[in-house]
């Protein structure tokens, strides 16, 4: 999947539209895990919903292309797009607790996902597929007839993953899939996703604010702030040669068990609200390296070196 200059606005009553997403570009290769990192309001949810074309009624994609399987997803009709979801691109949500139907058996919910999307129809084959999926995510066959409340948080997340895999998609968009889980369960789920990636050749767009998880899971990282791409590079570059001050500050603010005595840094201020963005660089009000130009002019995305992009006036000067 290749995304170019994707922008999304939210239309607001009695206010000019909020530019929630501005000119975001990236490529997701087969078998790649791309980490989409940012704090609340950075536009990562908007990006995800734009890709799936599931924006709320007041959301408008204003520019860009999403090339996938030789076509632009943004040009597809609603039916063709509906066909794309689940069969080719599926999502795993954060709230595994709330995304399952509480009064339907887990196995039946997975079967429904298969039948609803016309992947398979014959009853016997559907049953076989459900068994296969449960096995794939490590849920014992005896738990197929149980209800979501009989599952723990980790098991529910596994069920969600099984459901996302129901129609054998190429791309999984995982929205904070482990945020609400304990570290041990988180480790289990991450291990599962990694195994699935290898076995099924899945590409994963991994949306998270947890830089530790990104370091362990991802091949490439896209850091977002206030709706724009701040930095985009391989995972090794992001952690060992970050160019954008926001990326650097974010890394310093993230606790690292391997150096527990260092003082934890914070970034003063708070992320901008999308309806009150600063005129220049969106990070300028909190940036430690800010200078005059940052307050008036938005920096473009510059290529630092092959496969490494950053949007900062300082990078441009180098």
């Amino acid at each position, binding site marked *: 999947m290749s995304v170019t200059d994707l922008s999304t606005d939210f239309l607001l009553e009695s206010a000019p539209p909020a530019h929630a997403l501005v000119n975001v570009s990236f490529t997701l290769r087969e078998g790649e895990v791309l980490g989409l990192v940012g*704090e*609340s309001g950075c536009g990562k949810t908007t990006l995800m919903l734009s890709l799936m074309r599931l924006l709320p009624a007041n959301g408008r994609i204003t520019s860009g292309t999403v090339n996938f399987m030789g076509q632009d997803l943004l040009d597809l009709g609603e039916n063709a797009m509906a066909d794309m979801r689940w069969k080719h691109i599926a999502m795993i949500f954060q709230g595994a607790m709330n995304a399952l139907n509480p009064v339907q058996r887990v196995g039946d919910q997975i079967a429904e996902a298969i039948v609803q999307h016309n992947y398979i129809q014959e009853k016997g084959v559907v049953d076989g597929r459900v068994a296969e999926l449960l096995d794939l995510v490590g849920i014992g066959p005896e738990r197929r007839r149980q209800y979501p409340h009989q599952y*723990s*948080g*980790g*098991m529910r997340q596994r069920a969600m993953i099984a459901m996302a895999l129901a129609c054998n998609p190429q791309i999984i968009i995982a929205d904070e899939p482990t945020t609400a889980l*304990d*570290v*041990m*369960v*988180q*480790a*289990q789920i991450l*291990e599962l996703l990694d195994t699935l990636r290898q076995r099924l050749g899945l590409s994963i767009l991994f949306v998270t*604010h*947890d*830089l*530790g*998880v*990104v*370091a*362990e899971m991802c091949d490439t990282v896209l850091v977002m702030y206030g709706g724009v791409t701040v930095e985009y590079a391989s*995972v*090794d570059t992001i*952690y*060992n040669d970050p160019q954008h001050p926001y990326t650097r*500050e*974010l*890394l310093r*603010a*993230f*606790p*690292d*068990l*391997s150096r*527990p*005595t260092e*003082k*934890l*840094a*914070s*970034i*003063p201020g*708070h*992320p901008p609200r999308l309806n009150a963005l600063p005129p220049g660089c969106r990070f300028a009000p*909190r940036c430690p390296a800010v200078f005059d130009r940052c307050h008036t002019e938005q920096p473009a995305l510059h290529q630092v070196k092959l496969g490494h992009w950053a949007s900062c006036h300082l990078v441009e000067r180098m």
Partner: protein
Amino acid sequence: MSSIVEVTHLRKLFPVKKGGLFDRQEKFVHAIDDVSFTVERGEVLAVVGESGCGKSTLALTLMGLERPTSGVIQINGQNIATLKGKEIQVVRRHVQMIFQDPYESLNPIMTIADIVAEPLKVHGLVKNKQERQERVIRALEDAGLKPALNFMHRLPQELSGGQRQRVVIAGALVLEPELLIADEPVSMLDVSIRAEILNLLLELRQMRGISIVMITHDLGTVGYVADRIAVMYLGRLVEIGPALQVLQQPHHPYTRALLSVVPVPNPRQRRERVILQGETPNPINLPPGCRFHPRCPVAQPRCQETDPMLQPVAAAHEAACLLLSSG
């Protein structure tokens, strides 16, 4: 000087509904089972564990919101388990709690000033409006909301997540407590502002000599704030000791496994991860012997029989594992 908190052989069992007509045996959830520890004045103790390990019940019991089944909780030398009505109110004034979610723990239709002043009213601590105003201002400014006048007349929704958590902290500070119990105080906040709140807690400890019990599942941050770490598993303390020692030389296999799966924000650092399979067992039917043995990567036959007690492994550092005694 004596410790501010002294917990000895604390147990908290919750009865569970009986299975059926013929199931006469009463069952219990062993939320806290024979836990002893102290918190010194001005100390930050982190209580770490996964969900269901009993850490939240521990917080509620320390607050006097749950009565212990047995054991003693002394706060400032008074056993809160035996206190009644008014007396417990007096002790509780010195123990305040900070909750996890700053978005839901503030009343959306009250101004910041009213929210922070409310504990003063509940405890009937101030004589007049002016004194109340002064204490509210002091609490807000100590919580880092300066100048307080800019915030007092606003509503929670006008504040950012970090500011809201500061309001929650101000609401606890206004009673001038000696002990703060912080239940996952930063887990709902953005990464860039977590450190601010943790540093604020450390400042309060410095400025006011407040002791802090921090309940958390986030091992990543505890090293920055805690003096000591206590690790809980299924209602038991399995390890307790100085923070750095526990993080760098964990003795209990559970602590080791927990630490090994904390994601490290550096792709060049790959460690051997010990991923425990399955989940924490149900605290109703506890496994016999060491309660960690069904998931323990180094369990031996005798672990199924003997329930290990905490024993010293280094200075001020204890762990409960049978394998430690055999050297």
